[in-house]
């Protein structure tokens, strides 16, 4: 229970930090804290493989990418620290979201999920590498393939979005009509 409180606090601090940090770099660091706290939960919840994946993919790859972009975009630019003012509409949306999230949390805490009619022990290999492997390379392979396609899409996307382009103004007749 103490472990839960500590890790939950870490996760919450990370989450709140992401939202209120002034600079994107700090946000990113807070998000890493949050992600690692979640990874701890995954271990506790017998999802060892996911915990590893969470740390490697999220904290390792995704967040490094974030940090890289943040520094790329903000390096040497002075102006971006002007504090953001909360306009009415955003504030209202925020308050609404807080209420909804709080309500959701309360509902989740005080209403037990589906009452268990469960076998007592966890199945063998539950959540560890060989268990996940058996599923992902077995019956659920198709989902893995779909994720692979998405990563492929991302690769294509990065190529498309950052390819050199002809300057649109200088050369308006880019379009080919001979076909």
């Amino acid at each position, binding site marked *: 229970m103490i472990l839960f409180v500590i890790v939950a606090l870490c996760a919450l601090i990370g989450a709140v930090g992401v939202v209120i940090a002034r600079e994107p770099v700090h946000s990113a660091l807070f998000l890493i804290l949050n992600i690692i706290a979640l990874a701890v939960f995954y271990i506790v919840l017998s999802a060892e493989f996911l915990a590893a994946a969470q740390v490697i993919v999220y904290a390792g790859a995704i967040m490094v990418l974030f940090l890289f972009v943040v520094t790329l975009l903000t390096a040497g630019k002075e102006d971006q620290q002007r504090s953001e003012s909360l306009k009415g509409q955003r504030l209202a949306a925020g308050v609404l979201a807080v209420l909804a999230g709080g309500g959701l949390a309360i509902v989740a805490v005080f*209403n037990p*999920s*589906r009452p268990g009619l469960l076998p007592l022990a966890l199945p063998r290999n539950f959540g560890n590498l060989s268990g996940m492997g058996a599923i992902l390379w077995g019956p*659920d392979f198709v989902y893995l393939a779909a994720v692979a396609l998405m990563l492929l899409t991302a690769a294509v*996307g990065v190529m498309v979005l950052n390819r050199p382009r002809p300057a649109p103004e200088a050369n308006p007749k880019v379009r080919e009509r001979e076909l």
Partner: protein
Amino acid sequence: MSSALWPEYLVVIGVMVTMLTVIFSQKSGIGAYFVALAALIASGIVSIVEWSSPNLPVFLFDHGVMVDAFSLVVNGLVLLAAAGALLIGWNDRRYGSDFPVLVLLALLGMMVLGLADNFIALFIGIELLSLPLYILAASRGTQVSGEAGLKYLLLGAFSSGILLFGLALLYGASGTMVISHLVPSHLVLPLAAGGLGLTLVGLVFKLGIVPFHMWVPDVYEGSPLPVTSYMAFGTKVGAAAILMRFLFFGFSLSSGWWGPAVGYLAVLTMIVGNLLALAQKDLKRLLAYSGIANAGYLLVGIASHNIQGARALLFYLLAYGLAVLAVFAIMTFVAQDRDSVSVNDLTGLYRRSPWLAGFLAIALLSLAGIPLTGGFVGKVYLLQAAWFANQPGLALGLVVGAMIGLAAYVRPLQRAFSAPDGAVLEPIPWPWAGSIVLIVAVIGTIGLGVYPTPIVHIVNQSAAFYWLH
């Protein structure tokens, strides 16, 4: 490898071959378009063959996906949308040579949405559909296009988050991932209610229903024209298909939970969407709001929760899609090197290109729901569904919305048929690929209006929710 999934496999193969073509023929890039088109045609043929095969429905991957007549009709619709987008943007260098690859990838997502029977497939479908479209929206490389992509991305990620959390709660409430195994009476209520609500919000976000429609006009306006046509038609098909699957399979027995909410959203969307369309000067924004309103019409089919609703939804998707393809093809012709068309640009279109003006009239009148066009028959079908469900409110909302929308569609028409203000206007060239789309779409629109019987037959056979009546 199950043979039932060959349409999807063909698209995947198409993606691979198209990419190879792009890599090995850097210079011209035209080969990729032909390969992609071939993949579309092959997939379409296989879908048709499968539709007439007797051993449907097929469940695969432990109820992960379900191939039935419904999913095959969705296949047909999204293939049409993809072919339309591909031909409208045929060999257009501005979108890069990777355009066909991304179109095919998004197509795969839409097809998965038609098949999905569990939460994983649902989520994968949504993301496979969205990711390429984020890229496509930003692919023009101009500032506006990039901003459209950014807006789409942020709101897409946001709505996917809501959807995911809703699905997670539903998983907790039911203990199953499979949509058709959800048994409402066994659900843990508060969790299930929260989960259903959030999931609906997430899906409705993708469809562009009114309180969650803010992103639609901006994204449509900023995206390149062929991509916008793809979003307007294809995305709508996918989102409507999965919404219908999700509600009609998972929560069919408890329509009281969601029916009224969806009904109110439908009426709100139809009226607000059409009202906002009235004020638009940019044709793309006009179509964006019209798309919102049409999403509202689609919701009528869902909210009426009967077999007529399912059939009407499929029929209306086709009628709407054909009209939209025609309008976008015309817009591409008129826009030429630009990426937007204002209502004023249409002035004197009748003088410049009479046939184009005539086709525009047909397409817009179909959107407005005038008889002898597909839009009219579709609306009649939706009205029937609403009456069969004993919900006159839905019927009334549909009609009031259509009435408001009429004024919005007629204004560009009056522009197109009024004399130009003296400026010299040259005739508009017709690129061949776009012309194919335009002519097919116009013939289809008229055909649906004059003799809808075969299509009515197909959708009646395909709305495979046998417990409804």
